[in-house]
């Protein structure tokens, strides 16, 4: 069995984001980066499947981006992926989901992957399109927002999270692509010995142009902070009055007490 996991490096979400020079994306200087949270679930699930199948599947981890994405690649290798592909693209932030999916599909095509794991979305761009677009391009069935995953005899049984806490089950035959959601698993920490072992694992490199030169279908036109709203409401009175007022606000302004 052959597994591909696609991961992205994103800024720590607690960072202070500033618009870049063209005000179409954020300025990357002085940001700390880490693995996209949803991609951690993808890596973890792939490694668990490998363990379930007695170590037989080979897991390739793929990431597109500048030199710094090697850090998340190495983390995935330390978590248990076998080999890596780094698509060296310093300009990744200006590519849209279609371009990224096209690069991934071009890499995966003809390489006989049985299963592709991706995150449900990235924490920074949040398009939730890359996984499904890549699946379409490859002609793979796909299922999104996994909170449960099982595999036996070429069939994936996926549990999906639906609105309002309802869950659904979907079955699909491999080759297939799944996108992973919070709640699927608790990703392992890379241990120190495994971080050392990861040093010896192969990281193959590609230029994006070798794989795809699709033009973008969408373009980001502006990146800015919300305009500052007026300051909050201060409510006064005794406890009973405060509660009354809060309930009125919750009813009128939110869906909490509908």
């Amino acid at each position, binding site marked *: 069995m052959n597994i591909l996991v696609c991961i992205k490096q994103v800024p720590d979400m607690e960072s202070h984001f500033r618009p870049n020079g063209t005000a179409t994306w954020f300025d990357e200087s002085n940001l700390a980066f880490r693995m996209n949270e949803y991609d951690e679930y993808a890596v973890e699930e792939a490694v668990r499947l490998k363990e379930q199948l007695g170590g037989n599947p080979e897991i390739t981890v793929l990431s597109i981006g500048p030199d710094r994405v*090697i*850090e998340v690649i190495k983390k995935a290798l330390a978590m248990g992926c076998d080999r890596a592909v780094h698509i060296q693209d310093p300009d990744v932030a200006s590519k849209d989901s279609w371009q990224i999916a096209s690069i991934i599909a071009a890499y995966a095509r003809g390489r006989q992957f049985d299963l592709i794991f991706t995150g449900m979305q990235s924490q920074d761009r949040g398009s939730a399109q890359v996984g499904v677009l890549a699946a379409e391009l490859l002609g793979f069935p796909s299922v999104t927002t996994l909170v449960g995953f099982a595999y036996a005899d070429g069939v994936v049984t996926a549990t999906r999270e639906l609105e309002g806490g309802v869950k659904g089950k979907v079955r699909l035959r491999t080759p297939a692509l799944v996108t992973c959601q919070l709640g699927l698993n608790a990703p392992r920490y890379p*241990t*120190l010995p495994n971080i*050392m072992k990861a040093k010896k694992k192969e990281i193959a490199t590609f230029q994006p142009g070798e794989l795809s030169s699709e033009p973008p279908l969408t373009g980001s036109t502006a990146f800015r902070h919300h305009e500052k709203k007026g300051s909050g409401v201060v409510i006064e009175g005794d406890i009973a009055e405060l509660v009354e007022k809060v309930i009125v606000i919750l009813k009128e302004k939110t869906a909490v007490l509908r």
Partner: protein
Amino acid sequence: MNFELTHDQKVLQSAVRDFVENEIKPIAAKIDEDHMIPDELVAHMAEMGFLGSYFPEEYGGAGLDMFSYAILIEEISRGCASSGVLVSAHTSLCANPIYAFGTEEQKKQWLPDLLTGKKIGCFLLTEPDAGSDAGGTVTTYRIEGDEVVINGAKNFITNGGYLGTGIVLASFDRSLKHKGISAFIVDLTSPGVIMLKNEKKMGIRGSYTTAFALDNVRVPLKNLLGQEGKGFSIAMDTLDGGRIGIASQALGIAEGAFERSVAYSKERKQFGQTISSFQAIQFKLADMYARIESSKLLIYKAAWLKDNKKKFSLESALCKLHASETANEVTHEAIQIHGGYGYIADYEIERMYRDARITEIYEGTSEIQRIVIAKQLLG
């Protein structure tokens, strides 16, 4: 020259940081209150490879370098200084001398259990009457056939309470002072090793600081580490490396207190503005940061020298001196920035202030570091 961590070092740093954020920080206050680190945490750290960090895989280690070890101790101590010193004393003061001075047979016998955390290591040098003056060791030993019989007392032993593996310094002839001292690897469950107490302390309360009586403790002669009479120089060499660990612990404490101070100063409002808008607070933060960064550079340099097999005893004393004084100043100012809340246990700065104090005392007081440094400067 390159001031950036490598990809591998960054992977390690963020892996340890995530572990500490999720598994250690949330229980750091409880560790302090309970005067102990839960066994499950010790086991979890062992599983992560924290107890075998820079030793080769063939002995059960993770094969990291000293530089990565410094980052490891720094990151653990940022969340919990007691956990930091557990790993530091275990690694630098027990596993390290066995690795550096042990025979192949000794390494094979003792290291795997230590590096995988089956045994927790400690270093038994200090005695009630021999602190800074370690050459004044009065614990004695005599050889009987193929055994050594040790008698005496040891106190202030970090990790002693785990009764794991200890490096015991003892003299065969007290009149020879430091030339009469030898080092032995001792299984602390041996008959005659009497644990008197775990001390109650101001800080690093989760770390055991243990007093022992050694009453006719019989140890196989093959447990002699290095040669007879070389114990003092083994101890001094061991402390050279250990100081990088303690400096990293101090750095971690300082960074933990600094981060909280920055965040608090941006939240706390007085006189209608955040206290971070007062220059008095800004200057404190600037000074704290300058000290932290300079400590970090000194530590990284000492670790780099050790990794590159260069002499590092001057630099390890320098980084220990500077980082420990930094930890004390930074936690002092951190309380000041937090005002009354800094003095209240819930805010944890108070614990960091108490934890910082010991770093100026153990593995050589600040006075002893200055002596070590001056000696090397003056020849």
